[in-house]
């Protein structure tokens, strides 16, 4: 059904539901699963990024270190001990731009991502209060392939809106 499934890892645990969905679809389709994280540019100009080590430049060292973190986190969630058809990629820039650029270049045929789950970046993620942020909005509107936005099973509607 699919040849390449692109999972957009936002590094919040709330996107684990989306990862599970991406993994399931990739396994059923015997497709390659690409786990992509975009180091988000803090500004549109500085080329600097926020990581757990603080504000850094997106050097090869930073990118390799992040790939290691992603591999440890996601491979532990895959049953196969050494999954062959899974690739980790890291880019730097504006997330939705890089996701679309990557999807186009790699000709992926499904993008899987999670909604935005925090209002205040300094606060905790609240998977039950998902929002459509810029990244989901732009990727779903602009991608040339289907986009799957996976939410928490506990996702519920609220009349309060917030």
């Amino acid at each position: 059904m699919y040849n390449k499934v692109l999972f957009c890892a936002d590094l919040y645990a709330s996107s684990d539901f989306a990862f599970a969905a991406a993994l399931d679809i990739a396994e059923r389709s015997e497709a390659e699963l690409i786990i992509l994280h975009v180091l988000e540019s803090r500004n549109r100009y500085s080329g600097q990024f926020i990581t757990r080590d603080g504000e850094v430049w997106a050097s090869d060292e930073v990118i390799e270190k992040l790939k290691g973190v992603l591999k440890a986190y996601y491979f532990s969630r895959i049953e196969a001990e050494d999954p062959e058809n899974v690739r980790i990629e890291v880019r730097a820039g504006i997330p939705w731009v890089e996701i679309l650029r990557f999807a186009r270049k790699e000709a992926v045929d499904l993008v899987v991502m999670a909604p935005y789950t925090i209002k205040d970046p300094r606060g905790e993620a609240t998977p039950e209060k998902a929002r459509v942020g810029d990244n989901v909005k732009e990727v779903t509107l602009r991608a040339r392939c289907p986009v799957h936005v996976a939410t928490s099973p506990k996702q519920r509607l609220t009349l309060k809106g917030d």
Partner: protein
Amino acid sequence: MPEMTRDVTGQSVDVEKIKRILDANNGARIRTWLSICSRCGLCAESCFFYLAKNRDPKVSPAYKFKTTLGEMYKRKGKVNREFLKKCYDILWGECTTCKRCSMYCPFGIDIASMISLARTVCWSQGIVPEGLERTLGNYRETGNQMGMSNEDFIETCDWMAEEAEEEIHGLTIPIDKPGAKYMYTVNPREPMYYPQDLSMAAQILTVAGEDWTIPSEGWDCTNLPMFAGDRDLAGQVVKTMYEKAIALGIPKILITECGHAFRSAAFEGPYLAGYPDGKPPVEIVHSVKLFYDYLRDGRIRIDPAKKLEAPVSYQDPCNVSRNGGLWEEGRGIISYIAKDFRDMHPNREHNHCCGGGGGYIPMGPEFKRRRMNSGRIKAEQIKATGAKIVITPCHNCFDQINDLNEEYQLGVKVLTLKEIICELMVIPEDLKPE
């Protein structure tokens, strides 16, 4: 054995190298400027750093050039690292080379040029802001500040052509079209961070029926080496662009909405690239001029029903207005797109720098707090207009005003000309998507 000096940390300075730079520039201009300044203080009030720092005399333009380049000449280049680090703080932290002070100097001393020369001395000793230094490697390796490959750039153009075709029937982004009228050059932030800008440029140029192309190399019109002090590289950057236009047989280079790119390509680049007459080998046209011509000549028509109702102000980028002469063209465009225009005071060629020019924005977080503090003058100017929208045809102004918007809670929306023109222009019937 080259002559060296050492500071308390034992780090050395190549005095011979500094002397060579100073000697090479020790012409009548610099000698006159350094000796003619009478400390009248008229330049002080013109400087937004001075105003924002409660009129501290140590931030006046005259003080800044005397204590940096002036001292370098006085000491005949025999300076140590400690001195150069103090210069670093002044040269990059307290000046954006906006050239406003030169307008108020009764002798017309070009202080920005002297600050730039002092930057070159610091750069020669490896003393340069990290944010700028990082771009230099990118320019050397890839020819552009963001380190984007030409292949990725072309792919981004193809991608944006696909997107724009949904708005404009038959739109293409021609690459390396020989003999086109305009070679459109961009700021790499566009393909990297907001590729829609390329799409919008393509829409405007297509609706205007323009004969244009994008080059597959030499497409970056920015020139951060010019602000870092690396003059050789700055010359090479601009030369690559000129030579591409010549190779394609294109008579005009079109500059995107970027201020310093215009200053580089039209005014400083020819000198940096070693053209003896100081003129670019092809005509340099800024987007502000071309867009104004399109609106004036009816090649682009604005839907009157869509004209902006909210109060609008216009930020004159220093290198488009004061140093580029296009302040009336900018206002001319606004007259077509906005009903309620509220100019800043002062304005036009007298407008203050946003505080993000001269390499300040890419210098990054190390200088952010100072950038916000000195930007208070611009924030106050904007607030006084009561505008809800600030339009500016410059990436640095755009980013700086966005940051000021947050810092000073200005409550404005910052827009580029392309964004508004695309939103408001009438699409001719034959170009409407099927």
